[in-house]
């Protein structure tokens, strides 16, 4: 969307007219030949400028393609101007925006309009260095007539750029915990229709004929079938704490704040499990707007999750909305909560979920050296808060909720290994 003004004269044109016309007239009237020599070029410029003044109003069509990118990727704003007559050059200026790098850095791009050309286009490449929804513009577009005498301005507004978080590298080697889903890549403890060999057993009514193991059947004289373990999926429920953002964020190329780590880690975990064929749900607490994604699987679902993660804004005003009922997360789900654990609300919630019998892990995303600040009072306050935090974490760990510091690949391995070990053991849950 663009709003344009009409052609307007510039101070340069006023100068040419004032010196040229007035100077030449004064030189003739007062008989000052030197004044004539000095004013004559300005007179030529003034007449030239007036004679080539553009009459038609140009039209501007701007677009940003693509409008959704990942952190560190680039997009381009392109403005196409038409109906250009007697235009010398076109200049576009993209204002400086946080987390948006333009090329050139100044955001100013000028393009020359050849004589006779009625169209021109200007393009400003932009790179987003931080996840989130960014406003682009307003892009200021100026068409200039010869001698810079007249200018036409247009503002191209209303662009938004969604920058999806670039998930950190994450991998998990251990097998998943018990799985109750119907399809997926995780081997179930229960026999069923799957790919992984479980054993050979006598034929039962209902077994598929293609499962019959003919060699064993011929040897034994009795029908036997090859049994397999069922292939099942897991439900991984991601809880993201967006109550506070602690630390300095330097974008994709710099330091990561707690929310940066949280969002990128959530993206990485979601991507890992979704690519394995598991179901992943997301709930962001403390964030504005709708911040829930129901469980589903597939690459399209990863995009949905990253979209919601990109829309996160910190909001400490709604810690009371954290309560969830038992039905909010199915009993077989693996709950992973990502939080800097600055607010005790996140730990309270983790304990609450664990008390319903769910497998819960808390991923600590607080940056290191967050307490190192210039202000000694603030540093002392941070030290006190970190001591309290350590005590809170110990209390939660004693209840059986592991708190794991995020270190990228393999961060969840000990937890997942423990979950797989526990899956066959009896458990007690408060109902």
């Amino acid at each position, binding site marked *: 969307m663009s709003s344009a003004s009409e052609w307007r004269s510039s101070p340069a044109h006023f100068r040419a007219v004032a010196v040229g016309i007035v100077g030449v007239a004064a030189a003739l009237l007062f008989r000052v030949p030197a004044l004539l020599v000095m004013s004559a070029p300005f007179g030529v410029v003034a007449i030239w400028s007036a004679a080539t003044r553009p009459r038609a109003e140009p039209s501007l069509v701007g677009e940003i393609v693509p409008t959704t990118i990942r952190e560190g990727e680039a997009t381009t704003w392109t403005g196409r101007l038409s109906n250009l007559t007697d235009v*010398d050059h076109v200049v576009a200026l993209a204002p400086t925006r946080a987390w948006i790098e333009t090329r*050139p850095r100044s955001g100013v791009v000028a393009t020359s309009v050849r004589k006779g050309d009625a169209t021109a286009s200007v393009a400003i490449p932009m790179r987003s260095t931080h996840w989130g929804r960014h406003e682009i513009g307003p892009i200021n577009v100026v068409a200039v007539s010869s001698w810079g005498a007249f200018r036409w301005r247009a503002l191209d507004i209303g662009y938004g750029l969604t920058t999806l978080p670039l998930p950190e590298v994450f991998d998990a080697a251990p097998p998943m915990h018990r799985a109750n889903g119907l399809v997926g890549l995780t081997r179930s403890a229960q026999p069923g229709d799957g790919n992984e060999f479980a054993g050979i057993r006598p034929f039962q009514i209902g077994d598929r004929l293609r499962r019959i193991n003919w060699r064993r059947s011929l040897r034994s004289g009795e029908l036997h079938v090859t049994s397999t373990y069922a292939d099942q999926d897991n439900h991984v429920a991601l809880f993201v704490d967006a109550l506070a953002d602690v630390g300095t964020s330097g974008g994709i190329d710099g330091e990561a704040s707690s929310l940066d780590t949280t969002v990128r880690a959530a993206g990485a975990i979601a991507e890992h499990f979704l690519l394995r064929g598991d179901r992943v749900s997301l709930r962001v607490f403390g964030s504005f707007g709708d911040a829930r994604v129901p469980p589903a699987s597939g690459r399209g679902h990863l995009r949905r999750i990253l979209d919601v993660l990109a829309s996160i804004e910190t909001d400490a005003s709604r810690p009371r909305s954290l309560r969830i009922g038992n039905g909010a997360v199915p009993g077989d789900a693996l709950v992973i909560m990502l939080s800097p654990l600055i607010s005790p609300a996140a730990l309270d919630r983790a304990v609450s979920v664990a008390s319903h019998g769910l497998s819960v892990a808390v991923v600590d995303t607080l940056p290191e050296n967050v307490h190192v600040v210039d202000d000694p009072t603030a540093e002392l306050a941070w030290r006190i808060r970190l001591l309290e935090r350590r005590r809170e974490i110990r209390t939660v760990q004693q209840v059986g909720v592991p708190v794991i510091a995020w270190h990228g690949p393999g961060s969840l391995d000990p937890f997942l290994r423990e979950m797989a070990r526990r899956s066959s053991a009896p458990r007690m849950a408060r109902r």
Partner: protein
Amino acid sequence: MNRLSLQQWVDEFLATSRQQWLLRLVVVVAPVGAVLAAAAATGAWWPFGLLMVTVLATVSAIRPDTHTALGVVVLIVWHWSARVDAVDTPWLPLVGICLLVFHSVVALLATIPTGGEVPNATLGSWLRRTALGGGAALGMWALVVVFDRGDAAGNGVLTALALAVVVGAAVLVRSRSVDQMQ
């Protein structure tokens, strides 16, 4: 000046491209050259004028989209008209060309924000236009010198004709621009 505007100045300073620095240098050098030419023509320095022109030209280089440049031109034209009587001096067309170059570069700078690069094609076309304007200054000087050396007597008809041309030009310029002028 508060801290924010100082920061804006520093940012602008750092964002200025090399090409813009060169163009801004021309903006300062051209009027100073005109003053030096006037000094050469009169054989006397004009320190106050040199200082004033340098300051105003620097302001014009920093803020080209203002009327400061008009002050520079008027100051130099006034100084020459008041101090130099000779018209057959070669310094006169040089002053005219310096003023035109100053005007052109300030006008060009006013269209490109700090940090922007003027396309080479645009630079080329502006250079050609300025050369044509400079040719007009040289042509007018040659005409004036011819009249001066011929010691031609005042011709009322010719003057009236010239004034009529000026009025016609003024009407043309007004009809196409004055109605929109700020």
